[in-house]
């Protein structure tokens, strides 16, 4: 009986020894693997700043300018030319480039629509023909310090539906790819 008891004690001690060794080895390996690293530090700050370009009501259609003049909704009825549905004025005393970029459409099967920026001459920005994009993003136009440019649209519809064209006015610092996006919704009834 004593012999068996001693035998079990030996086995138990060996197991305990093996477990202890495994734990120690595990810690050792973990420390080796985790210790070879370093950290860089990035400290970004973000300041709420007045927007560089201000949207303003035009003289055609009905426009709603939202808080801080950085988004708008334009409503026009029926077909024809609407000069001008929105104005945009530079407020920082710097030169920017601007363009329109359509990002969503709704129920456009019978819609023909073109949207332009006018700065003394017309820049065709967005063209929709029978509900499909012909031109989804316009070319960049300079908007000089304190200048005002205008957005106008030509619309032809054959249905009695209400159409929506969702557009970003993109404002970019010339020569680089930092840009702001204002949301403009065009409603055509």
């Amino acid at each position: 009986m004593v012999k068996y008891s001693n035998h079990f004690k030996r086995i138990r001690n060996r197991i305990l020894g093996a477990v202890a060794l495994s734990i120690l080895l595990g810690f050792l390996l973990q420390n080796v693997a985790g210790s070879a690293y370093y950290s860089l530090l990035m400290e970004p700050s973000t300041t709420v700043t007045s927007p560089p370009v201000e949207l303003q009501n035009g003289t055609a259609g009905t426009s709603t300018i939202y808080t801080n003049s950085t988004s708008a909704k334009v409503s026009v009825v029926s077909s024809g030319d609407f000069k001008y549905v929105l104005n945009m004025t530079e407020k920082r005393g710097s030169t920017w480039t601007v363009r329109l970029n359509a990002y969503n459409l709704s129920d456009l099967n019978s819609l023909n629509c073109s949207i332009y920026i006018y700065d003394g001459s017309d820049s065709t920005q967005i063209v929709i023909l029978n509900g499909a994009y012909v031109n989804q993003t316009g070319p960049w136009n300079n908007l000089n310090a304190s200048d005002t440019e205008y957005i106008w649209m030509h619309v032809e519809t054959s249905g009695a539906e209400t159409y929506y064209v969702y557009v970003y006015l993109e404002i970019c610092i010339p020569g680089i790819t930092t840009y702001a996006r204002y949301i403009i919704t065009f409603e055509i009834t």
Partner: protein
Amino acid sequence: MNLREIAFKKPLKLLMLLMTSVLIATASATIYYSLTMQPQVTVIAPVLKFSTAPDEPTGSNVQDSWCSLNASSYPNATLTYEKAVYINNTDGGSAHSFRLRHVSITPANGTATVGNWTSIKFLVYNSSGYVFSLNYTVDSTNWILNPSSGQTSYYSVPQSTGWWIRLETLSPATAGTGNNCDIKIAVDVEQ
């Protein structure tokens, strides 16, 4: 004569115990040897490091292992710095992995001024496109981190390759101009 029978057997036992202890202690202390460690610490530039990028915000400061970015945020308009800062792997022989880890943000959660932001996003890109991001969005007066742990997984930058951080900011229409948010993010690099 039996030793157990003498009168001073207890003090004698104690003395023997003491002598034995001293002997063991002396023996233990004297049997040793020394290894010699000669560490050499050389100051070198990190292999993965920050570098200026074309859309670095005006007034920023970019050093190898530290950078500050002075970004703006417009009310109700998304402002994107497409290439705000580069993270370059300058090691020509090996890839190195890094992650983004949130350290701190001011204003802190529960402060009313947190409501001057909708989101601040740090998106990591390489030449193939989007890779991963660490984003801060606002719920009332609290910052919500994504990933919620505040740290991303590690991603491996191939040798001699530059990745970049795209910074996107957005404030609500009611944001007050002049409010400022300071963030600290660690870029942990595996050697």
